[in-house]
Structures are given as structure tokens and as C-alpha cells.
């Protein structure tokens, strides 16, 4: 339901009535074919929201080229017809008769069991604050606008020119924290978490666009705390030459009428500097829009003081209102990977709540029995689509249809105004049956969007769904050769000829069905593993939880409070109890996985104790939640000077009321001990918050304590920023140091003596303190390699597990059926581990909820006439789907050949491209078929 908003919510968890107001689109979604004729003719131009007002759109428009659904809409605030009753040109020229000015608002009521609120954020609008000159000086733009200028589909097609005069930019400044960490100008005290990283990305990409471009990023702290982000930051500095200036710039001034902009700031040496730039980019932060606040109010969902959805760190996707869940930036500023995994986590939380009702409303579509066409010669039907005038307006479709009749194997040709319309589909089914067609070519748009539709058509006509081929005569022909209709017609004929040649060599393929063992295996019994196991168990699946040590709990047992103040060990104890009581969870304490075989849906793992007790578990999915461990530092006199301890040690000493910890009147925290250095170029993410939190507690308990935090970048990201502010208010002293000028720790009169360069005073400082607390790195478990070998789940260079895709598949492994969560993936705080644990469960449940999973039939198939078992393909297969079979042959020699595991094969065909003997081919893309396409393309 698009163009819709929630007008009211009533009821309670399990039984909500949601009233939805659907605004009129004025375009019939069923009819609109997204041809864009209307846009070409619409006379009304307005600023494009998608282009952040750097470009224009029409009053009838589609938000952006990849929009889903790809259907046009009319903006009633700007449409001349809707406002003044004149014009209506779009209605007249629409070839699909889709424009409907009489469309009206509709109200819908839905009865649902649970609600997920994912309304997202809005970018801060810097115009009102005035100080940056946004809205006044054309060469001050926001990061979103800069993004559009860099895009090939943007207003300048990716050419970086400045808005005022079109001059190519040579020097650009990025100002960080615009609308974030700022209570004076906008009241957004929190950190938006994403702007540092996107500014670096924009700076690096801009340098690619304009060779020699000088880029400077003005920031307070560089917050690149995500996985692999610090490496990117280092590369930006060292390889791309992006300049970073640690200073918040408070004003932008124009330099006469030149369009240049003057920044006045204080550099790291403490000098006042004036510098000129062609363009200033404001790295705008995230905030919750007013209407979302209203909606929260309507739904009874509580917000934090920063206006984000209030959640518990132990249930990060549950709002204050039972049955209403949340994910994404609404629950706090966050980046794409975290938002994506929270989306899955919210699904897991809903699945837990609605488990009893699972499958109640599902319906299965049935198709007629499939006709066996194996023994028939190809009888190809060609359907040439006009797509209104989209194809027919350029390509001579008559000529293409006529030509197609002469092609070998073609027995029927027809033209359709819209091949995808429902009536054409019905008619196509009849034609296939009546004419006895056994192959179909549709010359229309792209198979990427429409092949699934035509496959359904074939199924409905009793044909195997793989016996259709599309000739892409719209997206890759009429639309891109609009000015040369004759050659476009020639090309259309070629494309049809290629498709006919290919489909004639296509055989019926059967989708592969893989049975799923509806049991889960979770490796690691910390907060993450227990959360995953519990969620799957509550969804009704049997789960085996394997823990290496003798008890559950993991690292959480040594932690105090989450950033928002929830007690971690107490909650963990409750979690252990809950796991213990759940009948669906079988806990294996003291066991490690020692052997594994199988694939998605069908794993068999062997677990063993140190004493050699072994068990075998059959399971459909596996979740790796093996955690990580704290670094034992080798610097700052640790182990040599008794006053030097790690943060976890300090917490313990303090909790046990150990005298030299409790009585310490002066304490120094040193950050980034072992993190963000040459061999460990990543941020451990939790240590800044941990030290700040401890410092606050120490100061609150005894304000006379002197507390110093020596840091490189203070990374209290998101709403944690409030802790940083509180610590400063309480008088905690923050001293910034750089990697090349690390603090030195020595002993003096039984105290610790710290030497550090002060960034404000610009001179060396000596601090005598009672205790030194080292904020040590989180490091990967040294034995991560074991699971890597057993389940083919890969590790990154730091020893953490590598997800399938950093942004889009943040909890999946490249190996199907295996998932990752928690510290095993990357250092992270409790609430992020819990969210990831839930996400892993949600992803696992998509498999476990079915007894079998149906896979596309486009898979590699060995041809045993040619395969001689040379095994070259084994090494190139990225999915480890190929095995070498060796068995005694007829002549007494060993016979070798390959076998492909269809459940693991993704049909990429690397094997096919590698095989020197035609011993393996991907069905639907065989050597024979592609050869035929080449021949047909060259008209041989």
C-alpha cells in the first residue's frame, strides 16, 4: 500500500485495528506500464524531492527510476488539472488509459496481530540555523545534494560543478555535525552515527570524479566505528589524500561575488586560519519527522528525549507498547547494515509473538498438469509487444512480426498492445493450448522484471515454465535508440532471432526441492546465542545450543550496565533461566563442534567434550554466535605497574570494593588500547562508552575524584552522546591524543605518571594518578578457524566472521543456511548483539518454517560423457557446490567425475566458463544455447 498513512490504531497486541488513509494516485496501478509518455508531455515542472531539489520533476512523476512499484503518480499540489481544471494532457496521451483524475482518498481498516513501525528519518534542514549560509549561498549544499551531483542519474550526470556558475570544483569542504551533537542551533544533542562515514565516502568518490580535487573534512571526532570503516578512513587519508581537520566550523561567508566561500577556523596548532573553497558540503544529520512523532503518540509508543522510539537494550526492536515493534532509524540513528538487520530482528520478534497463528492465512496457487514436450520438435510462438508506443513508437513491430514468422521453428506470431496485461495473459494461455506451442518468445521488456510473469503464464498453460525466453526490445532497444528507428528495428529482429535460437534449445527443467530438517543449531551460549536460541524455540523450533564452557552467559557475566543503564549480568541470569526452562532448547554445555557435513536444510554436526563424549545433531540451519574476547595488552606498563589495569579488571576491582580501586582519587582512562592500530585497524566500538560511563559513576560517587580520559576520537555514537556531555558537565577531563603521540606511563612515588601532549594547551602534560585504566580492544577468538573449516563460513582479516554482504545480508553467511551474530561478527554493544541475534533467528526461521525449500532450476549439470574429473571447476566454484567422485571403472581403473550439489549451486556457471571439456553446463545457459545466440546475433 503506497501513498498511504496510518490514521488510527486501536486494540491491543494480537488484535489491532489499523485505519489506513490511502491518498489518491490519480494513476491506475493495474494499467500504468511506466512508459513515461505522460512525463514527457506534462507541462508542470517542480523541484524533485529525490534529487534534493538539485533537479526538477514533473507534476506526474515516479520518484526515481528504480521505484517500486514502478507506477506513476500525480502530485495534486502541483498538477494544473487538479488545481485549475485545465490541461489533462497526460490523460489524453496515456497509451494505457491509466490516468484517472477522479481518483479519491480511500480508507482501509486492517485487523493485525502485530505492528512494525519503520517510518525512518528526515535529514536535518540547515536553512533555518542560518550560520552555514545554506539557502543563501548557492555553493553551500547538503551532503544529500552532493550525492545527487555525484550520481550518473543526477542533475549533472555525475559532473561535479558548482551550482552558482557551473565551474568545475577544485576544492571542497565538508562540515560535520550539521544538525547533530548540537543543542544550540537545532536541539539535536545526539550523534547521527552515519555522517562521518558518508562524508569520507563522498570525499573519496569526489576525488575519483575530479582528479586533483582537494577535499577537507572538518570534524570534532571521526566516528568510523562500523565494520571495516576505520580501514576505509585510513585509506582515505593515506591513499586518497582526503584532509581531516579537527575543528568545528561555525560560519561560512561568501568571498565577494566570486561564488567562493570563506571558512574561518582554528587549526590543530591553535592558529586562526582563513581558507577558501569552491563548495561547502554540510553533513546533515538525521532527525525524526514531526508526523512520526504524532504517529507514535497515536500508537501509544514512548519516545526518548531525542524523539527516537524508546526500547530496552535487551529487546531493541520492541517499543513501549506491547505488540508494536520498531526497526531502523526510528529506534535511534543508524546505518544501513544495522537497519537491515533490525528489520529482520523485528520480524523475529513478531514471529515469536504470532507463532501460534503461523500459516493460517496462506493459500497455495495450483497449476494444471505439465505437458511433456520432450519428444516434440520446437513449435515456437513469438509474441511481439507494442508496449503502447514504447516499442511500437520506435520499432516497426509489423516488420518484426512478419520477420519472426520466417524464423526456424516458429509456428505462430502475434502482436500485443501490452503483453503483460491480464487479458493478454489469458489469451496467451489459450493460444499456447490451441496452437500446441511448446516454446514461447516474448519480445517486450526485460526478463529481470517480467520473466516471472511469463513463466507463470506458461505454467497456467500447462507448459514447463522454463520454455520461455524474452527478447529485450524495450529497455535495451527502443528506449535507447529512440532516434534511429530503422536500426532499432534491425536490432529488434536480431534480438528475436537470438531468443528463438536459444529457446529452441531449451529443455523442460524441474525446480529443485530440498527437504529442511526443522531444527536449529546455535554455537555459543552468550547473550547472542541464547537470544537466537530462545527466539527460534518460541517460534516452535527445536534448538540445540552448544556452549564450549561449562556454563551459559559468556562475556556478559563480566559486564556492568548497558549504555542506557540496564544491568547486564542480572538480565543475563534471567536469560539463562529462561533458556533452561524452555522445552524446545537442548543445551550442550562443555561441548564444541568437532565435525560437520551437509548443506542448507540438511546439516549433520558432531559435538564433543574434552573427554571425548560425542553427540550427533541433525539440523537445518546453524547460527554462529561464538563471541570474542578482551585483548591482554602489552603496553602502558600493563603487568609491570600494579596501578595499570584493563577496564574489565577495574570494574571487577571496584565491584569487589578492592581498596586501591575504591580509594583512587585520580584515574586516567586510556582509549584505543590495541584498537585502530596497524595490525588491528578496527574500532572496538564499546570502549569509549564504557570509559565515559565508568567516569560518570566515579564522579557522581565522589566529585572530588580527578578523572581524565585520553582518547583519539570520542565515539559515543548515537544517543550515547548524552553520556559524553554528562561526563564533561561533571568535570571529567578529556584529552585528545594522536596515534603518533601515544601517552607514556611510568611509576613515580607509587603512583602512575602519565605523559601526554595536550591538544588545547599545545604543550606536554604530566599527570600523576592513582590508577590507569586501559580500554582494551575486543579481539576475535583464536579458534574461529575451526568453524570456518567445518561449515565453510569465512573469516575476515581480523579473525571475525565475514557476512555474505556488508549491507544487504548482514547476518547471512555466503554458505546457505548458516548465519552469524554478536561479537563473532564484529565488536558491538549488547543491544546490537541482541538485534543481530534476533535477525539471525528471523533469517533461520525463513528456512525452518518450511518442510522443504524450492530452488530455481537454473543450476550446473555435469555432462558425464565429457567430464573426466579433472576437477578444475572445484577450485573456482564460489559456493563449494561441486564434489569430485572417484569410483572403480569398467576397465579396472579409477573413474573420476564431478557431482553438483544442487542445493548449494547458484547457477553462476564459473564451472562452465572454466571447463575445458564441456563437462558441465548451467541449465538454461548451456554452451549450445549461448553458441546459438552468438550465431544468431551474427546472423550465421
Amino acid at each position: 500500500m503506497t501513498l498511504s498513512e496510518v490514521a488510527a490504531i486501536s486494540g491491543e497486541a494480537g488484535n489491532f485495528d489499523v485505519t489506513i488513509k490511502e491518498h489518491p494516485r490519480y494513476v491506475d496501478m493495474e494499467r500504468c506500464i511506466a512508459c513515461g509518455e505522460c512525463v514527457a508531455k506534462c507541462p508542470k515542472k517542480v523541484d524533485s524531492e529525490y534529487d534534493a531539489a538539485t533537479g526538477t520533476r514533473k507534476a506526474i512523476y515516479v520518484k526515481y527510476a528504480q521505484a517500486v512499484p514502478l507506477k506513476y503518480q500525480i502530485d495534486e499540489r502541483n498538477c494544473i488539472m487538479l488545481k485549475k481544471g485545465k490541461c489533462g494532457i497526460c490523460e489524453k496521451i496515456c497509451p494505457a488509459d491509466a490516468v484517472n483524475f477522479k481518483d479519491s482518498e480511500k480508507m482501509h481498516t486492517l485487523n493485525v496481530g502485530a505492528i512494525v513501525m519503520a517510518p525512518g528519518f528526515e535529514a536535518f534542514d540547515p536553512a533555518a540555523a542560518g550560520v552555514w549560509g545554506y539557502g543563501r549561498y548557492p555553493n553551500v549544499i547538503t551532503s544529500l545534494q552532493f550525492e545527487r551531483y555525484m550520481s550518473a542519474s543526477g542533475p549533472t550526470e555525475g559532473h561535479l560543478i558548482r551550482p552558482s556558475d557551473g565551474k568545475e570544483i577544485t576544492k571542497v569542504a565538508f562540515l560535520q555535525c550539521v544538525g547533530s551533537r548540537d543543542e544550540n542551533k537545532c536541539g539535536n544533542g545526539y550523534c547521527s552515527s552515519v555522517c562521518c562515514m558518508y562524508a569520507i565516502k563522498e570525499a573519496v568518490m569526489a576525488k575519483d570524479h575530479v582528479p586533483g580535487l582537494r577535499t577537507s573534512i572538518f570534524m570534532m571526532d571521526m566516528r568510523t566505528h562500523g565494520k571495516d570503516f576505520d580501514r576505509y578512513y585510513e585509506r582515505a587519508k593515506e591513499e586518497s589524500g582526503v584532509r581531516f581537520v579537527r575543528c568545528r566550523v561555525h560560519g561560512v561567508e561568501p568571498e565577494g561575488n566570486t561564488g567562493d566561500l570563506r571558512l574561518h577556523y582554528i587549526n590543530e596548532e591553535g592558529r586562526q586560519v582563513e581558507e577558501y573553497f569552491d563548495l561547502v558540503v554540510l553533513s546533515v544529520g538525521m532527525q525524526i519527522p514531526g508526523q512520526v512523532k504524532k504517529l507514535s503518540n497515536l500508537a501509544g509508543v514512548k519516545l526518548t528525549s531525542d524523539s527516537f522510539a524508546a526500547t530496552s537494550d535487551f529487546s531493541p526492536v520492541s517499543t513501549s507498547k506491547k505488540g508494536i515493534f520498531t526497526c531502523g532509524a526510528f529506534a535511534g540513528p543508524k546505518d544501513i547494515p544495522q537497519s537491515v538487520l533490525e528489520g529482520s530482528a523485528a520480524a523475529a520478534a513478531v514471529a515469536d509473538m504470532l507463532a501460534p497463528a503461523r500459516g493460517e492465512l496462506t493459500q497455495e496457487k495450483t497449476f494444471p498438469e505439465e505437458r511433456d514436450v520432450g519428444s516434440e520438435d520446437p513449435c515456437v510462438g513469438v509474441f511481439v509487444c507494442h508496449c503502447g508506443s514504447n516499442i511500437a513508437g520506435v520499432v516497426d513491430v509489423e516488420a518484426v512480426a512478419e520477420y519472426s514468422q520466417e524464423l526456424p521453428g516458429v509456428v505462430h506470431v502475434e502482436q500485443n498492445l501490452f503483453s503483460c496485461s491480464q487479458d493478454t495473459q489469458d489469451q496467451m494461455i489459450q493460444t499456447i493450448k490451441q496452437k500446441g506451442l511448446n516454446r514461447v518468445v516474448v519480445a517486450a521488456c526485460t526478463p529481470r522484471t517480467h520473466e516471472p510473469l511469463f513463466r507463470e503464464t506458461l505454467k497456467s498453460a500447462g507448459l514447463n515454465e522454463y520454455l520461455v525466453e524474452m527478447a529485450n526490445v524495450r529497455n535495451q532497444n527502443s528506449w535507447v535508440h529512440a532516434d534511429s528507428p530503422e536500426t532499432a528495428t534491425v536490432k529488434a529482429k536480431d534480438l528475436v532471432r537470438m531468443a528463438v535460437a536459444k529457446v529452441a534449445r531449451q529443455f523442460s527443467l524441474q525446480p529443485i526441492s530440498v527437504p529442511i530438517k526443522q531444527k536449529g543449531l546455535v554455537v555459543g551460549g552468550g547473550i547472542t546465542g541464547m537470544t537466537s536460541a530462545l527466539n527460534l524455540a518460541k517460534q516452535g523450533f527445536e534448538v540445540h545450543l552448544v556452549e564450549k564452557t561449562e556454563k551459559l552467559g559468556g562475556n556478559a557475566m563480566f559486564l556492568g550496565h548497558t549504555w542506557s543503564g540496564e544491568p547486564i549480568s542480572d538480565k543475563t541470569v534471567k536469560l539463562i533461566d529462561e533458556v533452561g526452562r524452555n522445552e524446545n532448547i537442548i543445551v550442550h554445555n562443555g561441548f564444541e563442534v568437532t565435525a560437520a557435513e551437509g548443506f542448507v536444510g540438511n546439516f549433520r554436526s558432531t559435538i564433543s567434550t574434552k573427554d571425548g563424549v560425542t553427540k550427533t545433531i541433525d539440523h537445518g540451519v546453524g547460527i554462529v554466535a561464538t563471541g570474542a574476547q578482551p585483548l591482554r595488552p602489552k603496553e602502558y606498563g600493563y603487568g609491570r605497574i600494579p596501578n595499570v589495569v584493563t577496564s574489565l579488571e577495574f570494574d571487577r576491582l571496584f565491584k569487589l570494593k578492592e581498596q586501591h580501586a575504591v580509594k583512587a582519587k585520580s584515574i586516567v582512562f586510556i582509549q584505543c588500547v590495541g584498537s585502530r592500530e596497524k595490525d588491528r585497524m578496527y574500532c572496538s566500538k564499546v570502549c569509549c562508552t564504557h570509559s565515559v560511563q565508568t567516569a560518570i559513576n566515579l564522579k557522581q560517587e565522589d566529585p572530588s575524584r580527578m578523572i581524565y580520559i585520553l582518547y583519539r576520537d570520542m565515539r559515543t555514537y548515537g544517543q550515547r552522546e548524552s553520556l559524553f556531555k554528562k561526563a564533561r558537565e561533571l568535570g571529567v577531563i578529556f584529552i585528545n591524543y594522536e596515534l603518533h603521540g601515544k601517552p607514556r606511563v611510568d611509576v613515580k612515588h607509587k603512583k602512575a605518571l602519565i605523559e601526554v601532549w595536550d591538544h588545547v594547551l599545545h604543550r606536554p602534560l604530566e599527570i600523576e594518578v592513582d590508577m590507569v585504566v586501559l580500554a582494551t580492544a575486543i579481539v576475535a577468538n583464536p579458534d574461529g578457524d575451526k568453524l570456518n573449516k567445518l561449515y565453510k563460513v569465512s573469516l575476515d582479516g581480523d579473525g571475525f566472521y565475514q557476512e555474505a554482504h556488508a549491507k544487504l545480508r548482514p547476518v547471512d553467511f555466503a554458505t546457505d543456511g548458516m548465519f552469524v551474530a554478536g561479537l563473532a561478527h564484529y565488536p558491538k554493544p549488547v543491544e546490537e548483539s541482541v538485534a543481530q541475534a534476533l535477525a539471525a533467528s528471523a533469517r533461520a526461521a525463513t528456512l525452518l518454517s518450511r518442510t522443504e525449500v524450492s530452488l530455481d532450476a537454473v543450476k550446473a549439470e555435469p555432462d558425464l560423457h565429457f567430464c573426466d574429473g579433472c576437477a578444475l571447476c572445484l577450485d573456482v566454484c564460489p559456493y563449494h557446490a561441486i564434489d569430485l567422485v572417484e569410483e572403480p571403472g569398467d576397465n579396472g581403473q579409477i573413474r573420476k567425475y564431478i557431482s553438483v550439489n544442487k542445493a548449494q549451486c547458484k547457477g553462476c556457471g564459473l564451472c562452465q566458463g572454466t571447463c575445458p571439456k564441456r563437462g558441465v553446463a548451467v541449465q538454461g545457459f548451456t554452451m549450445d544455447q549461448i553458441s546459438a545466440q552468438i550465431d544468431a546475433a551474427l546472423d550465421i
Partner: protein
Amino acid sequence: MSFEPTIIAFCCNWCSYAAADLAGTSRMQYPPNVRIIRVMCSGMVHPEFITKALDQGADGVMVLG
């Protein structure tokens, strides 16, 4: 008459083929000399296809992935 090359392009379904579709959606115009063959991964393109295409008269072959 000017030289009009015939070019065979092997495009990966997931990236370059999608990009060619997007070029259409964006109405970008380019010369009509390319014939695109969709593959499920550019790694599927056997060297034999490239030599075959050139052998049989293609003036250029692109493997995009």
C-alpha cells in the same frame, strides 16, 4: 559508408544487464551496434565464446560483470 562495428556483449544478469536496463529506463541513448547476451555471471562466459564470436565476424566482444 562509415564503418559500423558489430559488438557482442556478455552481460551479467545481476549487474551489467541490470545496468543496460537502467540505461533504458533513464532513456540514455547509445549506438545500436551492440547485441547483448544475458548470462548469470560473467564468469560463465567460456573463452571459446569470445573466440567464436570474433571468428564469425564480430568486431568486438565485451564481457561485463
